[in-house]
Each structure stands twice: as C-alpha cells, then as structure tokens.
C-alpha cells in the first residue's frame, strides 16, 4: 500500500456507561479506508459494527460514552480531538451517513426539498433557490423519476425504497468523500434491496466516493465490498479482500457463519450451525471471545486473548492456532 489512507482508525475502544458500570462495546478496532474503497463490515447483533460506524463521526452521546484509547485520522487530524465546530463541518459535508430506517431519519413535517436543502445551505452556503435546484439535481442522481415534482413530497407519501433513495440524495448532496451506509437495505424487500445496492455501486463510481457498508448479511456484503471486516463481540476477528474472505475464511467464526447461510442453489438436509448464543456483552469471556462456541478450540484459546495475525496478502485473522495448524501456509 503506497497510497495513504483517506481515513485511518487506530486501536479504537468505545465504552458505554450502564447501571452495571462501563461496558466495552468495541475493543481496539483498527481500519484503513482508501480512496474509492468499498469496505464491508459484517457481524451479528452486539458485534460492534454500528458502534464502530457511529464512532467515526463521533455520534455517541458524550455523557454515556467514552473512548479510552484510539485515534481516527482524517485529513491530517485526529477526529477524536477535533473541536465540535470542525466535526459539524465534516459530518454531512465530507463524511455522510445513511441508516437502516429512512422513516425515522427523515423529518415527517418537512418536504423532501427542505430536508435536502438544509444540508446544502449549511455546508455550501447556498441560498434557498439555489439549494432547491441542487436538491432536484440530487434526486435525479438517485434515479427518482419526475424529481422536479417529487421534491415537494413529504416522507409519508413515498414508499420505503423511495425514502431510502431520498436519504441517499441528502447524503450525497454535498459530494462527501466518504459515505457510511449502516444496514441501508435491511428494512427493504429483496427486489428493492437489489435496486439500492445497484444505486450505491453506480454512485460510488460516478462520485468517486469511498463507501463503508455495514450489514449483518454476508450476501449483501459480497455483492458490494472489495474488502471485508468481520466483527464478533466487539472485536475485529478477520479482515481480507472479499474474494479471499469468502473462498478461504481463516477465522472459525467466519467459517461457521458462511456455512450457516442456507444455500439457494442446492438442497441440504440440515444446516451446519454455530453452537451456543451470541455472548452477553456484560459477561467477560477469558481469552478468545469466540472460544465457548468454537469447533476448533484448544486449551490455550481460553487463556490469552489472541492477536490479529497475517494469514495472507492483506488478510488478517484473530486465530493463531488455525494458522499454526495450517503449517503457516500463508
């Protein structure tokens, strides 16, 4: 990697205040996002994938969250130390985010025109008329037909798919360099999901953005990402170029998760499963956090927390025992 990353997260830990004390939501997460990158972050409930995304824009409520370690380097500064004023310029202007449920992110009493214009007037200092023209152009970009009329609609007048297109229009209105999409298609039907994924791919190449796509669905991630990060119980357990991850997963959790997906192209009598449940975030698991559910567990796994080790070209996995068993094939 000769080129410098656009965004670089180093050893980020986030903790939340709860009645039972501080709970670690993510621990020492690192990631590099290159220009025009399509990074997928995949994990189940409680894996910390959304917490990671929200942290990038420092969107956690100050009194209930703390970040005892880590840095988020963007454009020569550490976003964790940046003044709130600078963060406000970056949020929505340079780094934009879309969420799972467009209905709760859109304001029900404002027209689409007002909601897109708001960002443009704030970040680009446009007047109302210019912002409206730009809003219509944004709706065109997300392939909403008859944008000049639709721009005056209210959220409840639109279908779920259309609302997600509007959210994307707001996000790209200021031509951000990075778009973070947190489960953007999870609430949508499959045919609409496919449309939104097509749209995100097209916009990424048209606008030259870097995109971080967060999903619980390894299928959705495969359709979009060039690189994939797998999270489990607050830690990154594997990171690899997409093809390597799906062809040769190197962490037992990734292997188990891929095997548990019901196949569409052939019949199986029973699905392979990962035993046990997703761990309770309040329970401290000694050693490797996946060890209580792991089919390949060894005595040492329950003692020391494993580090991420290199297992191939750009391929990291938090399972030194498996690497050792494979005879250091990497």
């Amino acid at each position, binding site marked *: 990697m000769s080129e410098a990353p656009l965004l670089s997260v180093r050893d980020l830990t986030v903790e939340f205040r709860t009645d039972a004390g501080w709970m670690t939501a993510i621990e020492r997460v690192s990631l590099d996002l290159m220009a025009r990158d399509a990074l997928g972050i995949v994990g189940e409930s409680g894996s910390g994938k959304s917490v990671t995304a929200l942290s990038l824009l420092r969107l956690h409520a100050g009194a209930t969250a703390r970040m005892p370690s880590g840095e988020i380097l963007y454009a020569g500064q550490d976003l964790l130390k940046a003044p709130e004023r600078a963060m406000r310029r970056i949020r929505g202007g340079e780094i934009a985010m879309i969420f799972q449920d467009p209905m709760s992110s859109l304001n029900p009493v404002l027209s689409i025109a007002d909601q897109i214009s708001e960002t443009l007037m704030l970040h680009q200092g446009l007047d109302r008329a210019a912002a409206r023209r730009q809003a219509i152009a944004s709706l065109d970009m997300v392939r909403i037909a008859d944008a000049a009329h639709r721009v005056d609609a209210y959220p409840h007048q639109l279908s779920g798919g259309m609302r997600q297109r509007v959210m994307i229009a707001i996000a790209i209105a200021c031509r951000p360099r990075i778009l973070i999409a947190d489960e953007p298609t999870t609430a949508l039907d499959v045919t609409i999901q496919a449309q939104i994924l097509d749209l995100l791919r097209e916009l990424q190449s048209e606008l030259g953005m870097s995109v971080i796509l967060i999903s619980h669905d390894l299928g959705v991630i*495969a359709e979009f990402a060039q690189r994939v990060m797998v999270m489990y119980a607050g830690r990154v357990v594997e990171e690899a170029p997409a093809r390597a991850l799906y062809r040769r997963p190197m962490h037992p959790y990734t292997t188990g998760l891929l095997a548990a997906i*019901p196949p569409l192209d052939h*019949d199986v009598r029973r699905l392979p499963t990962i035993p046990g449940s997703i761990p309770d975030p309040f329970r401290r698991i000694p050693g490797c956090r996946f060890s209580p559910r792991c089919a390949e567990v060894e005595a040492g796994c329950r003692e020391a927390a494993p580090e991420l080790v290199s297992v191939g070209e750009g391929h990291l996995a938090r399972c030194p025992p498996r690497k050792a068993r494979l005879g250091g094939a990497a």
Partner: protein
Amino acid sequence: MSTPIVSVRDVVKEFAIGHSGVLRAVGGVSFEIAAGETLGLVGESGSGKSTTGRMLVGLVPVTSGEVTLFGETITGAGGAAKLATVRHRMQFVFQDPNGSLDPRMRVQDAIAEPLDIKGGYTRKDRTDRVAELLDMVGLPRAAADRYPHEFSGGQRQRIGIARALALRPEFIVCDEPVSALDVSMQAQIVNLLLDLQEKFGLGYLFIAHDLAVVRSMSSRVGVMYAGTIVEIASRAALYAAPQHPYTQALLDVVPRPDPDRVRRPALAGEVPSMLNRPVGCPFQARCPRAEGRCREETPRLREIGRDHQAACHLI
C-alpha cells in the same frame, strides 16, 4: 399427495379503507397441505402471505372462499363452531418472540398456558410436560423459572416453539419465525423445526421472505405477489426451473455469499398499490416480457408441469 389436512379454496381478503376504498390483500388463493408436509409461502411486503396464514387458522375472517382443516370447513355458516373443534390441533409461531411472550410471565407459565386453557392437567402433569417441552426445544430445564427477558432472541423463539407444541398439534403456521434472528441463530431454529417435524409428523405452513430459508424448510413452495399465488411447485421444480418471470427475478436478486457472481440489473419498479389494482396481470408493470394480453386479461394459475403451476400468459 395423501389426504390434505389443510385445504384453501379461492380465499379472498378485503379490508375497507376510509369510506369507499377496498384493499384487496388476498385475491383468490388456493392450495393444500398434506400431513407431515411443509408448504413454503414466499413473497415481499404486501404480497398477502401473512394474511393468508392468519385466515388459515381463523385469526382473520375470510371475505370469501373456503378453508378446510382436518376435514372441517371453518369458513361460512357454522364455521366458528367447527373451528372450535379443530383449534387445538394447530398452532401459530410468530416472527417476533418478544411481542408474543408476556414479559411478566415465567417461561413455565408461558409454555403451559395452552394446557391451563384446555384444563384437566394436575400440577405434576403440568410440570412434567413443561420439562419435556423444554427438552424438545433444546432449553435447559432451569429455564422454567426464569423470565423471557433473560433469554436471547434465538432462545425466546425456542420458548415460543415449546409453547406451540404444548397441546401436540398436527399443523403449525410459522410466520417469519427466523427473520428477526441473527444468521447463527437462524440455522439452529431451522434445524429445530425440521427435527420436530420428523419426530412428530408435523405439517407446516412456513411463511418467509427469504427464498434460501424457504428452500431449506419446504417440500413445496408457493410464490405470492400482490395478493395472489403466481407460481407453486415442488421445491425441486421451483428452484431448478422457475417459470414465472417474478419468481425468476426474485431468485436472481437474492444476495449470495459469492463476490464473483455476475448479477443481472435489479428488477425495476415497486409492488403495485393494492387500492388501484391494474387490469390484467398484477406483475405486468415490472415484467420484462409483458405484452398486450398481460394488460387485458388476468392470468389464472394453471398446470404447467408435474406438481408445478404458474399464473402467466407467456408460459
């Protein structure tokens, strides 16, 4: 197919909207389910699959059409009385185990509630049956004294299944039972449902939006679109040789864990409004192959192969 335990004939459900509007949620659906068989019903939001499942067990009254369960017709005159005689032979498992379990009820009371309603169980019978049901669904017996919030989503769905099994039903409607669960939990529940079916010869109507989950559960599959079944076939035929353009498109858009797969562009458009149904085929506006006849005449479901029916003029 042996004698069906469930038979649905031309079932229609309309809801009144405002003063004059009528929303036709289900527009004439027919199918049968044999003992020990699983019919998968798949479709997107608004396809009418959940409403169909609810009409089947009498949770929602039909507007017209006929539902017969274990030989008793539960629709029309005298239907309510007939329903009462067969109700204990079938059960319902819901999508959201949080919404279907009372948070203030201990697990043993939630599971035993059907027994309490039926009556005639001694304290010991009740405790034994709860223990047996917990074993069946893979929960520790100690779970009996705890409350639903102490369990994960997957475990709560196991509690919901134990409760559904309490009265030894022969048929269960499962409405999206795994869609709220994480992938690693989903596979466990699918396997549990398959094991229970094998053990007790249960018949299932398995409603889901996920074609891959439906494949792993079902012996036959019906695909619904805008309130009608557009294709219904054996699992083998439906997945190997889908005939209806909607089924083909739906299979194509399912994201697969394969970064090298070449996918066709997504199906354009959205599901039509149920208030102003177009004349002709409900899928015409999005169908890449639609022609004149599709806009004039509504296609009927007809035999196109062995255990394979589709509603399309172009097949």
